[in-house]
């Protein structure tokens, strides 16, 4: 977006589809939006919020949105399905998905899960996490009762119809439970034997990258600035989030934000070695069949060199 002589900026429309409803994971994005970093970069960013986390990656592949937030496992599955999608940056470069139970349940460790009920979001690769986690404690999936509760994870755990839940985020559900005085025990899956991966990544359509990568570059640069700003001033970030989403609960959001900011990837860099290890794990667990050439799934080429001020 080059400035025209009269000083007004020509901005190009740019659509971003979130992974799910707005939450502190998106702090950098809303900050950049609020502080006009995207506008400076000549982008007029519109933010879409789906309710089905599997939808965004399809929409990006369908060319319906310029950029979408998805999950590393989802990206790999998309590749397996032949979708033309590439991860161009990490929003959160480590697992947030956690195994959560309540202290009062008296569960000391994974081994105590034998015969217990575990609520999941009904996502196969997360069931695979559980398998790996249980295996490390010498348990098999048949030793526990898992039930797919879709959106009902928290109610299931808090309501006592499940003893533990897998699928909640440490920085969202985890914080939420703590805030409600349920003192939960929250363990991200990479602490339980699942190879680390980038929980939230930004994906673009491969062919699109070939044609004009510029907008993507500009966006990622703006996002990096936004993230930096967010980390610097949490309060302003909270304000930005709440302003943009009046239906967020202020108290909860602030708490989540505190827990989230340290987890945000500053530049969005993705570690190929880490991805390779995770791909291997996915194959071992039969989630993907063919090997996936790393160059196809991710590219750090569009990230800003150093974080611009």
């Amino acid at each position, binding site marked *: 977006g080059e400035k025209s002589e009269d000083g007004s900026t020509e901005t190009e429309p740019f659509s971003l589809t979130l992974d*799910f*409803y707005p*939450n502190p994971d998106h702090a950098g994005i809303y900050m950049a939006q609020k502080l006009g970093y995207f506008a400076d970069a000549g982008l007029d960013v519109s*933010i*879409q*919020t*789906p*309710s*089905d986390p599997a*939808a965004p990656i*399809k*929409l990006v592949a*369908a060319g*319906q949105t310029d950029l979408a937030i998805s999950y590393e496992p989802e990206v790999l599955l998309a590749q397996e399905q032949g979708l033309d999608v590439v991860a161009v940056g990490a929003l959160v470069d480590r697992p947030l998905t956690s195994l959560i139970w309540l202290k009062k349940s008296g569960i000391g460790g994974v081994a105590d899960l034998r015969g217990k009920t575990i609520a999941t979001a009904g996502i196969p690769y997360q069931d695979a996490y559980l398998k790996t986690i249980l295996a490390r404690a010498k348990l098999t999936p048949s030793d526990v009762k898992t039930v797919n509760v879709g*959106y009902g994870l*928290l*109610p299931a755990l*808090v*309501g*006592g119809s499940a003893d533990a839940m897998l699928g909640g985020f440490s920085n*969202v559900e985890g914080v*939420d439970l703590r805030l*409600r005085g349920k003192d939960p025990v929250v363990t991200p899956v990479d602490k339980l034997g699942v190879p680390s991966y980038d929980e939230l990544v930004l994906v673009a359509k491969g062919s699109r990258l070939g044609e004009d990568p510029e907008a993507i570059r500009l966006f990622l640069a703006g996002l990096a600035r936004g993230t930096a700003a967010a980390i610097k001033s949490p309060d302003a970030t909270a304000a930005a989030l709440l302003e943009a*989403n*009046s*239906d*967020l*609960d202020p108290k*909860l959001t602030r708490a989540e934000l505190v827990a989230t900011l340290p987890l945000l990837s500053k530049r969005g860099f993705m570690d190929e070695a880490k991805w390779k290890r995770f791909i291997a794990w996915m194959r071992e667990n039969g989630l993907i069949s063919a090997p996936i050439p790393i160059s196809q799934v991710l590219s750090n080429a569009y990230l800003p060199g150093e974080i611009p001020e």
Partner: protein
Amino acid sequence: MRRWLPPALVLAALIGLWQVAASSGLLASVLGLEDFLVPSPAEIASSLWENRSLLAENAWVTLQEIVLGFLCGLAAGLGFALLLRLSGLLRRATYPLMVASQAVPILVIAPVLVVWFGYGIGPKLAVVALVCFFPIAVATADGLRSVDPETTKMMRTLDASRRQLLWRVEAPTSLPFAFSGARIAVAFAPIAAVFGEWVGADSGLGHLILQDNAQLETARVFAAATVLAVIAIALYGLLAFAERRIVTWR
């Protein structure tokens, strides 16, 4: 006035009981319903009051989706019923598809809806219309078929064309049926709008419910649901009133 008393009383009684049970911890102990699962009426009421502007905004969005979607569904349903009536072949040919269309989870076609209608009011209207269309079409079609054959003979011997038979006899006969269908449809419409919003939305009661559900904001979830219920009852009442005004010969 007297017509409103009984429902009001029953409602008051229920809410009262519920409140007592909740505050006396009975719900938790007996029914196992802790207040973050099912808030007490008092909590819901205060949430309704505190979030009145937020709820109002979102309710307005959803109400538009419901009303417009219902109208589309109504038009489609009535039109389809007439078509079915006029062509037995068409009837046999498309009826199964019509039924099938009701059995497809929105989740499955959600991306398609987005591709076609974007994130605007489009997909919500589509979902609401799809849901409302069916009961209206089925009920009206049944109504059109329910004409006494003797009456048809009478019309035929008076040189009625197919169209005249349809408009002068079959349509009036089917009106009460059509209203049944419409009332059923309008009661389902709010839910449909909620699902429509789950296709992708940044406002509306459905959006709010999902958001709050994720945050375990149970009181506000129930507040939103209450607003939905009120909308449904209001629209249903409106239709029932219209029916009494239009179907005067029964």
